[in-house]
C-alpha cells in the first residue's frame, strides 16, 4: 500500500466519521428540541400579557413580567406560601430521613447482633407494600392524633412530615448501608482502641466520610417529597397549608384558559428548587447509585 493510497483511505475514513458525527448531532438536536419545546413554550407563555396560544413568536408582543409579579403578590392564590410550605416540609422531612437512616445504616453496617438479618430484610420487604395505598388509614391516624394534639393532626405540616417519615427506611437504609460498608473498618477500630465511644466514632470518624451519600439521599428525598401529590392532597385541607403540588393543581379548574399565562409563571418558579438540586447529583444518578429513584 503506497503512502498516497493510505492517506486517501484515511481521508475517506475521516469523511465517513464526520458524516457519522453529523447525523448523531442531528439526532441529539431533535432530542433537545423534544425535551425543551414544552419548557420554552411555558417560558414564552409566562411572559405573555394575555392568555393565548403563541406559535409564531418566542418572545410575545409586549412581553412582561406581570404574571410573575401577580403569582408572587396575588392574595387569591398564596403561591409564595405554597412554595415555602413545600420547601419547609420537604427540607425538614429530608433532614430527618437522613438522620434516621444514617443511624440505622451505621448499626447495620458496623454491629453484629441477633436481629440484624431479619430486621434488614423486614425494612426492605415493608417497602414492597407502598404506604400510599393505605392513605385512608393514614388519614384516620392523623384525624385521631389531631384530637389529642391538634398540631399533629390533619391539615398540619407536622402531621404530613410524620407520615412521610413512615417511608424513610427501606431503600434509603439499604443504599446507605452499602456505602457505609465501603468505609474500611480499620478506621473505627483505631478509634475504639483510642477509647472512643460508638457515638463518637459515628459522628467524628464515619460521618465526615459518608457525606456524599448523605447528600444524595437528602436530595432524592427532597425531590420525592416536593413532588408528592397524593398524600399532600388528602392530608392537607386548607388553601394556606397546601404544598405547591396541591396548590398548582387548583389552576387546572374551569378558569384554566384564562389563567394559562399565570400558571406558566408559577410552574417555572415551582420547578426551580428541584431543578437545581437535580443537577447537583446528576452524575450519581447515572452511576446507578440510586436504585430507589424511579421516574417514568
Amino acid at each position: 500500500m503506497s503512502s498516497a493510497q493510505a492517506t486517501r483511505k484515511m481521508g475517506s475514513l475521516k469523511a465517513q466519521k464526520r458524516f457519522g458525527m453529523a447525523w448523531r448531532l442531528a439526532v441529539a438536536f431533535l432530542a433537545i428540541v423534544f425535551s425543551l419545546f414544552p419548557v420554552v413554550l411555558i417560558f414564552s407563555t409566562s411572559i405573555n400579557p394575555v392568555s393565548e396560544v403563541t406559535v409564531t413568536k418566542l418572545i410575545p408582543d409586549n412581553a412582561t413580567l406581570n404574571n410573575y409579579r401577580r403569582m408572587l403578590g396575588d392574595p387569591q392564590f398564596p403561591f409564595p406560601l405554597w412554595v415555602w410550605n413545600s420547601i419547609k416540609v420537604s427540607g425538614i422531612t429530608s433532614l430527618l430521613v437522613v438522620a434516621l437512616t444514617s443511624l440505622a445504616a451505621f448499626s447495620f453496617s458496623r454491629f453484629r447482633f441477633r436481629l440484624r438479618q431479619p430486621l434488614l430484610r423486614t425494612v426492605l420487604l415493608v417497602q414492597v407494600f407502598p404506604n400510599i395505598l393505605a392513605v385512608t388509614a393514614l388519614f384516620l391516624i392523623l384525624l385521631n392524633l389531631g384530637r389529642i394534639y391538634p398540631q399533629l393532626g390533619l391539615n398540619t405540616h407536622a402531621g404530613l412530615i410524620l407520615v412521610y417519615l413512615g417511608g424513610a427506611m427501606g431503600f434509603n437504609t439499604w443504599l446507605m448501608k452499602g456505602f457505609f460498608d465501603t468505609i474500611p473498618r480499620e478506621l473505627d477500630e483505631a478509634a475504639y482502641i483510642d477509647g472512643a465511644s460508638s457515638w463518637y466514632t459515628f459522628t467524628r470518624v464515619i460521618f465526615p466520610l459518608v457525606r456524599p451519600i448523605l447528600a444524595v439521599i437528602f436530595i432524592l428525598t427532597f425531590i420525592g417529597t416536593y413532588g408528592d401529590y397524593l398524600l399532600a392532597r388528602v392530608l392537607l385541607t386548607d388553601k394556606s397549608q397546601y404544598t405547591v403540588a396541591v396548590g398548582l393543581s387548583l389552576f387546572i379548574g374551569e378558569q384554566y384558559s384564562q389563567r394559562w399565562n399565570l400558571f406558566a409563571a408559577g410552574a417555572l418558579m415551582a420547578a426551580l428548587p428541584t431543578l437545581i438540586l437535580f443537577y447537583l447529583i446528576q452524575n450519581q444518578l447515572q452511576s446507578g447509585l440510586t436504585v430507589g429513584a424511579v421516574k417514568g
Partner: protein
Amino acid sequence: MATASQAVKKSSAGLQWGGTTSSIVLRLVFVALFDAFAIFTGWQLIQGGVAPLAAVIWLIALGITIVFLRNDAMPLRWIMPGLAFMVLMHIYPVLFTVYTAFTNYSDGHLIPKPVAIQQIEKQTYLPADAKTFAWKVYSGPNDTFALWLTGQDGEQVFKTSTGEKYTAEDLKEQDVQFAEDGSPVAVGEFTPVPANQRFAILPKLQPLSFGPEEEAVRITSPTAAAQVRQKFVYDPVQDAMINQETGVVYANQRGTFTSPEGEALIPGFPVVVGLENFTRLLTSPALRGPLFTIFAWTVIFAFMSVLITFVLGLLLALVLNEPDLPLRRFTRVLMIVPYAIPAFISVLIWKGMFNPVIGIIGSQWDPGWFSSPFWAKVGILIVQLWLGYPYMFLITTGALQSIPGDLYEAAKVDGASGWQQFRSITLPLLLVAVGPLLIGSFAFNFNNFTIIQLYNNGGPPIPGTPTPAGYTDILISYTFKLAFGGGRGADLGLAAAISIVIFVIVGAITIFNFRYTGMLEEVSENV
C-alpha cells in the same frame, strides 16, 4: 466484624449499666419521658374509641423502653427511631387497610361502635305525659341559645343550649334584673330575642335541647316547649337498641341497629363482613366490568410507559454514546431537563398544551385528548414518554459504558454485523444491568397516581357504572375515588379490597425483582 463484637463486649464487660453515668441518666430520662407521653396518648385514644392505634403506640413505647434499658440491645438503639416511624406510619396503616378490606367501612359505617351508640342515645322523644312550658328565647355568643320557661304549675326556669340550668331563685341571687312580665332582662351574655324574630330562628332552635341531659327540654311548637326523654337505650346483652317509647328492639345487623320491620338507626358502625368485598368485586357485574377495564389499562399503562421510554432512551444512548461527539455534555444537560422537572408540573404543562382552546397542540389538532377514551390514553403516554425517557437515557448510557469493548472486537473478528452485535452482546448485557430498574419503573408506574389524577381525573368517565370510574383510571386512582368519594359516597371497605389486590401484584413484582438482583440473598451472605 471484630470491631463490632469488641465494641459490644467492651460496653457490657465494664459497668453493669454500660456507658458513662451521664449517658445512663440521659437514657433513663428519655425513656421515662417517652413512656409518659405514650401512656397519656394511648389512654386518650382509648377514650376516643381507637384502641388499635393506642396498642401500636404502646408497642412502640415498649420497644423503646427495652432497647434503651438493656445493654445487649445497644445496636438496636440506632435503628429504633426509624423503626418506630415505620411501624406507626407504614406497617400499621397497611395492616389496618388489610383489616378494612374485610369490613363494611363506608359512608354510614364510619365511626366506632361506642361512638355510634353514644350518638343514637342522644335522640329524645316526647312522652305523652310530658311536662310542658311556655317559652321565651335568648341568644348568646357563638350561636348558643337559652329558654326562659314557664310551666303550667308556675315553675320558672332558665335553661341554656350549653346544658346549664338556673331557677328563678338562682338568677335573683346573681342580681339579674327582671322585666315586667317576670322574665330576666339578660342573663350573662344571653339577651332576649325580639318577638318578631322568633319565627326566623325557629329552625335553629328545633334541633337543640336545653338544660342538663336528664331533664332536657325541646321546642315542640312556636309557643310551647316540653321536657323530653332519652329515646334509645343500648342493651349490651342483646347487643341491641331499645326504643323506650314503643319497646321495639333494634338488633345489630351488620353494623346497623335495625328493627324487625327493617327500620335502621343512623349512624351505623363498621363490622367485619368477611370476604364480601372481594366477592362483590368478582361477582357483581356492575363492579366487575369497570374493574376489568381498569385493571387491563393499569397493566398496559405501566408496561407501555416503561417500553416507550426505554426504547427512546436506548436509541438515543446508542446514537450519542460516542466519545468524540462534540458538545456531548452540553447535549446531555439540555436533554434531561424533563427529568429534573417535578412530574406534577410536567403533566400540568402538557395538559395545557393539549387544551382545545389555549393549547398549542389541542387548538390545532384535537382528536379528543380528554374526551376520547383512546386519545386520552395516548395523551397520557405522550406525557409519560416526555418525562420518562431522559431517565432511561441516563441509565442505559451508564450501562452501555460498562460493557467491555473487547467483546465487540471479538465479534468484529468473527465477522458479526452491527445488528448481530447489538442483539447478541449489547441488548442481553444491557438488560442484565438495567433489568431491575425497568421492573422498578414498572412497579412505580403501576401506582403512578399523580399523572393519571392530574391529567384528567381518570376521565372520560365510563358510563353506567355504580362506582365512579373513568377510562384512564388506574387501580390506585380508582381506589382513591372509592375511598374519598366521587360524589357517590365513600366505600372504604371496597377500596381497601382493591388496595390488597394492588399489594399482591406490586408485592409479587418487587419480590421477584429482589430475587432477580439477589438483594435479599445479599443480606444473608453479608454477615
